[in-house]
């Protein structure tokens, strides 16, 4: 935290000598009021400066404010706050007049023995400041489904507790917890998105003002989706708005909705959008089914890759086996499909061509007769971590020995898959029969068993 505050301080102090001088003069007025026994005035002047947890700290104001908290002068006695201010001065001596350091150290030592176990509270306050507003909110999503969020001065992190059908989950939200951040009330937005089917969805939003420079605040926006007993991060907009002032504005939800919102787009999909920005940053929010499907595909791929023996070496000029594991099937961004042998020393690539996506499913494509339909087999001497079929960039040895199909028929069944960002996406099941391949040297091999590949493909216009 110290480094962050230092960075903020350096950014904030450049070009501001007059502001610093003005503050210094005001602090001296506060000290004078203190000496004259006008504690109400001293508090009025010194408190904002003392309790501003942004570098450079006004440790002179902090010193006298701490004395007033400790003795109940002009304020209710609050030894914890007094302790925290002295402790901050002790930790940031470069902002403290050297003439006061002896007293500061002695008073911190005193608090250490006076407060006992409460010293931890003092240390926490010294770290996070006094102005981090406590926030607590509970939202009921459905019967037996609720979420409670809490940020308290006692905890360094913003925590969420979710209950869903008897299951409980405690999660850290990962919101900023630096000194002096200001949380606006949490918001829960419920939407029913329509694709692929009507489904109620719940979005938790946090708006947080961060002090970024002297008298400057930046509004951050955090969006999560509540999914069963979990929370899925959707987006973070770090600079929704920047405002000037000693204190951030006290926005109502209607004010915030002029800056950013969660809503349905014309397709009935959930989307987040930044309205404050001229560029109107926006993105659709994928469904949980989509997230889970993508995650499952990734896991399956990773599991298959783990089984590969990378030390295996095979004869590169051998004829292809034409036996492929269906779980190895993958699609590229275009209408490319490929699969590999279990040991990943052989790969088959099919370019489906535009006709695969035209007319009724299933469609039949024939090598040599269907425009754009192409099938190749690549044979390697060693297992391939990655096949080059989805890239136009070729490295030496990427290709292996290529056997080109000169005959064969593929039957392709397509069923639409809901991909919120990719409308022309399908799950394709491709069965290749009667294929014959020829090597660069003219050797030929015929397919003796069916080849079936199943994967997600995108239409040709993607």
């Amino acid at each position: 935290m110290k480094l962050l505050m230092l960075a903020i301080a350096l950014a904030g102090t450049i070009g501001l000598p007059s502001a610093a001088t003005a503050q210094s003069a005001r602090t001296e007025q506060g000290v004078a009021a203190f000496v004259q026994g006008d504690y109400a005035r001293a508090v009025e002047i010194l408190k904002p400066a003392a309790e501003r947890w942004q570098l450079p700290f006004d440790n002179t104001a902090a010193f006298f404010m701490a004395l007033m908290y400790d003795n109940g002068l002009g304020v209710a006695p609050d030894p914890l706050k007094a302790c925290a201010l002295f402790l901050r001065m002790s930790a940031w001596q470069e902002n403290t007049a050297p003439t006061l350091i002896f007293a500061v150290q002695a008073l911190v030592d005193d608090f250490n023995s006076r407060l006992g176990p409460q010293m931890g509270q003092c240390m926490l306050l010294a770290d996070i400041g006094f102005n981090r507003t406590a926030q607590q909110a509970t939202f009921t999503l459905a019967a037996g489904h609720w979420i409670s969020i809490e940020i308290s001065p006692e905890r360094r992190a913003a925590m969420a507790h979710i209950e869903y059908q008897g299951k409980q989950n405690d999660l850290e939200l990962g919101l900023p917890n630096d000194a002096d951040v200001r949380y606006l009330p949490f918001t829960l937005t419920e939407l029913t998105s329509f694709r692929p089917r009507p489904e109620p969805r719940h979005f938790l939003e946090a708006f947080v003002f961060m002090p970024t420079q002297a008298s400057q605040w930046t509004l951050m926006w955090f969006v999560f989706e509540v999914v069963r007993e979990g929370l899925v991060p959707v987006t973070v907009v770090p600079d929704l708005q920047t405002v000037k002032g000693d204190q951030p504005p006290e926005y109502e939800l209607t004010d915030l909705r002029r800056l950013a919102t969660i809503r349905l787009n014309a397709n009935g999909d959930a989307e987040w959008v930044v309205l404050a920005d001229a560029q109107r940053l926006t993105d659709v929010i994928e469904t949980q089914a989509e997230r889970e499907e993508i995650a499952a595909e990734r896991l399956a791929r990773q599991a298959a890759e783990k089984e590969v023996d990378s030390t295996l070496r095979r004869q590169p000029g051998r004829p292809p086996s034409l036996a492929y594991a269906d779980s190895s099937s993958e699609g590229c961004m275009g209408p490319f499909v490929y699969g590999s042998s279990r040991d990943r020393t052989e790969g088959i690539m099919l370019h489906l061509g535009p006709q695969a996506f035209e007319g009724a499913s299933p469609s039949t494509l024939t090598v040599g007769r269907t425009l754009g339909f192409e099938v190749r087999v690549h044979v390697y001497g060693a297992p391939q971590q990655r096949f080059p079929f989805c890239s136009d960039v070729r490295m030496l040895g990427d290709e292996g020995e290529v056997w080109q199909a000169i005959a064969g028929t593929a039957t392709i069944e397509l069923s639409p898959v809901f991909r919120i960002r990719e409308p022309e996406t399908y799950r394709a099941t491709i069965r290749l029969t009667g294929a014959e391949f020829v090597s660069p040297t003219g050797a030929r091999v015929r397919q003796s068993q069916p080849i079936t590949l199943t994967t997600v493909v995108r239409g040709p216009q993607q």
Partner: protein
Amino acid sequence: MRLPALLAACILVIPAYTTAQTTAADGIVALTRGDAAAAVRLLAPLVEGQAEPDPVAALFLALAYQFGGRGPSDPARSCGLLMKAATPTNPLMRQAELLATQLHMNHDLMRNQCAIAAARGWGQPAWTTYTLSRTHRVRIDPNGFLVEHEGASKLTPEGWGGAGWRFLPIRLTQVDVQAPGEAPRYFVEFFAWFPHTPVDVAEWSLMWFVYEVVGIDVIRRQQGDGRVATTVGTAPPMTISADDVARLVSDDSGEVVRVVIGTQARRVPLPPRGVR
């Protein structure tokens, strides 16, 4: 009192009060700027020698002294001021007590020194300057000896003063040595009474400190604890002549001797001029 006279008294009193408060505030502000010397200059008159010193000013004056606002810091001096500041009329009484304890650490000797400083103040000599020749001058101030000699100058840091000490005037003594053609030797002598306790009727000891100015250097010619006389009373006798108690003389061989007269009579030869 007739009304015009009463009004006149008010007019005279209120500005005086405001000025004192302003000065205290100025002194404390100076301290918060890190200017301990200015803090001492502004706060000391409000505290030292005052029958009812401003306790808040006393606390901050203690911090200024502790930081070295007037020469080397002496914890007993600051501690005494803090003890003095720890009065019920001081809104910062707790802090004053705490800081005093931090300085004396509940050590008997140190706590006694704090109590003496609180009760009797901090004694320092009257600063002075001596001209030894046209090109040889010694200034004695809170920082020590500043000697100017043949165009060069040198500060020999030294701190004088103590809890409740009462200094007789500083004395410059020229001792002519016997050897023909040899320059006289110059000594700066301090005599100070110090109280042993803070009680009203205390035992006092008279201390004698001797320094020799040799060219641009100042050499301490001290042996033993320097105690030369004792007395008991509410205050020590300040009108005595130091010569009746102790003096520096030249003996037959031309060496300088410290001579103590009275019940603690003794003669102690000082090292020759060239011996440091």
